């Protein structure tokens, strides 16, 4: 059966992890790895695996646009602003894993369907957003949420220099996503870096205040479990640490994200959930493009 051709822009940790995840997809065919450092581990591995390797960045790829229809951008926010424009002109579907947020913010189990077939650039929000916005939405779809707050704790080792240099971007983009995608009237996000060794798994806590008089503990619990199962379909290491805790109109949900350990270590659940969600977006796009019934497990 035919597959949709994809390319990865950026040969760092995220790009290389994407490469391994895409190799497992029955809908996507990785053809090209684009980087700027010929010596990078990502490009070296791509060469070994027989992919087309482009060493002069996006411009090199645009000389051979037939190589792929979908481009994952795993570079930096600053670079993506430039890339977004060029990819649009070339008619490519861009999946942006940087915090640039040029395109629609997408959290697959919540709003992916709205954007597939319409948007030509989608942004993966933040790791904390991918982990927690599904839960905010799961609560909101059964009991309207007035306020949602999330706390993402990640190991220091899995917070890259980009995140560190602009940590405000995380809090701002995530709280925006909690509102516009999750559905909370007001959102707030907190991120904590923990340097413990061995590194801790990503942990996320979601607090939500539901509208007065609208609390339905059973419905919320069921909705959360259903959502967790949905996220697990593309992030197997995503799980609840405890049952939701209820207190008046407040619900607290404790989550943990263990990475698949493809290229990134297992403790980097925060990075894994980003690459897994991005692959999920590309697969949905592929299904839409191929518009044929897909059988699982090919």
């Amino acid at each position, binding site marked *: 059966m035919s597959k949709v051709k994809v390319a990865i822009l950026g040969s760092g940790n995220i790009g290389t992890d994407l490469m391994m995840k895409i190799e497992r997809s029955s809908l996507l065919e990785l053809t090209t790895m684009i980087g700027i450092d010929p010596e990078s581990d990502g490009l070296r591995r791509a060469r070994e695996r027989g992919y087309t390797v482009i060493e002069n960045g996006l411009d090199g790829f645009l000389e051979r646009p037939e190589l792929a229809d979908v481009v994952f951008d795993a570079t930096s926010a600053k670079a993506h602003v430039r890339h977004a424009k060029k990819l649009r002109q070339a008619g490519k579907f861009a999946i942006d894993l940087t915090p640039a947020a040029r395109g629609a913010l997408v959290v697959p189990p919540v709003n992916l369907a709205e954007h597939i077939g319409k948007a030509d650039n989608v942004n993966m929000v933040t790791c904390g957003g991918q982990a927690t916005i599904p839960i905010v939405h799961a609560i909101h779809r059964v009991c309207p949420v007035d*306020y949602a*707050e999330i*706390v993402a*704790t990640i190991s*220091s080792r899995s917070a890259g*220099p980009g995140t*560190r*240099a*602009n*940590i*405000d971007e*995380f*809090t*701002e983009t995530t709280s925006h996503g909690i509102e516009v995608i999750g559905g909370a009237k007001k959102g*707030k996000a*907190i*991120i*904590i*870096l*923990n*340097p*413990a060794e061995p590194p801790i798994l990503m*942990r996320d*806590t979601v*607090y939500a*205040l539901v509208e007065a008089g609208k609390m339905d503990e059973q419905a919320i619990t069921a909705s959360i479990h259903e959502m967790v199962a949905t996220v697990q379909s593309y992030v197997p290491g995503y799980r609840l*640490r*405890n049952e939701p*805790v209820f207190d008046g109109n*407040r619900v*607290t949900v*404790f989550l943990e994200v263990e990475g698949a350990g493809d290229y990134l270590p297992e403790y980097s659940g925060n990075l894994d959930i980003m690459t897994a969600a991005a692959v999920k977006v590309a697969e949905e796009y592929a299904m839409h493009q191929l518009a044929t019934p897909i059988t699982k497990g090919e």
Partner: protein
Amino acid sequence: MSANRHITITEVALRDGSHAIAHQYTVEQVLQVAKALNDAGIPYIEVSHGDGLAGSSLQYGLSRTDEFELIEAAVSVCDQAKVAVLLLPGIGTVKELKQAHKLGAKLARIATHVTEADVSAQHLQYAKELGMETVGFLMMSHMAPVETLVEQAKLMESYGADTVYVVDSAGALLPHEVTARISALRDSLGVQIGFHGHNNLSLAMANTLAAIEAGATRIDGSVRCLGAGAGNTQTEVLIAVLDRMGISTGVDLYQIMDLAEDIVAPILQVPQEITRDSLVLGYAGVYSSFRLHAQRAAAKFGIDSRDILIELGKRKVVGGQEDMILDVAAEIAQARHASVK
């Protein structure tokens, strides 16, 4: 210690003390306390949610009064003292810093875990651009070896910190450990060195004197120990001790004693003392603001709050991870339940 030395005091009761009263400060309280501190000659008064700007949250506790109203109130009664604000990157952003500056805050204290200084670059640089004085605040300093502390302090200096603080958030450091840390910073940095202690092991004063002896010139205190855990170095006592040592602070001893007794003491529901939970914070090396949260979780699950705090210490939980308290409490309760079965 030579005579004619001067130490600059920052009073933190209106920020760190916010933890001790579950973030319930009112405008009237802040007006009264800040005015009295200003009149007593305290040069810097810190005002913010206990977890810094934007700390008001379900995670840390909601502020009864919007902290910007409290900052504005403090600024309105200070004609000598400067108002300081605390900001923890990951919780607060430059947006709140800008607002605090607009309301008249003059000193920005940017706090990170002792190993994570690089997240403060953005905020320290922005504070300098605003024309604010800056402090880099290395929290949980007991959790890193001296070499790491020095390396992280140098980063903060490079981002524009005018002072770098060794912050003993857990009240876990012993005097010789304070000496080693302050001395190492003194040897490696060109900027001022500060010390912020907690009295969980009854060592806040001893640690403060060790810090001054080793070269710290900026010291935090809280009147009546109105701070997280067992509180900080007790300001009015410190003023008296430094006076006896011939070290000047510019603070009037009678006035600071009076405001401690007449204005601050009534704010505390119970006087600050070293309770078993506070002691355990220092002993286990846990962030001081966890105390009240651990007590609530212990009551909810019917377990001993000390077990929760000791377990948190074992797991090397850092400042800000209040969500771990409920999580660990639930785990302990579950394990107990299973073993009873």
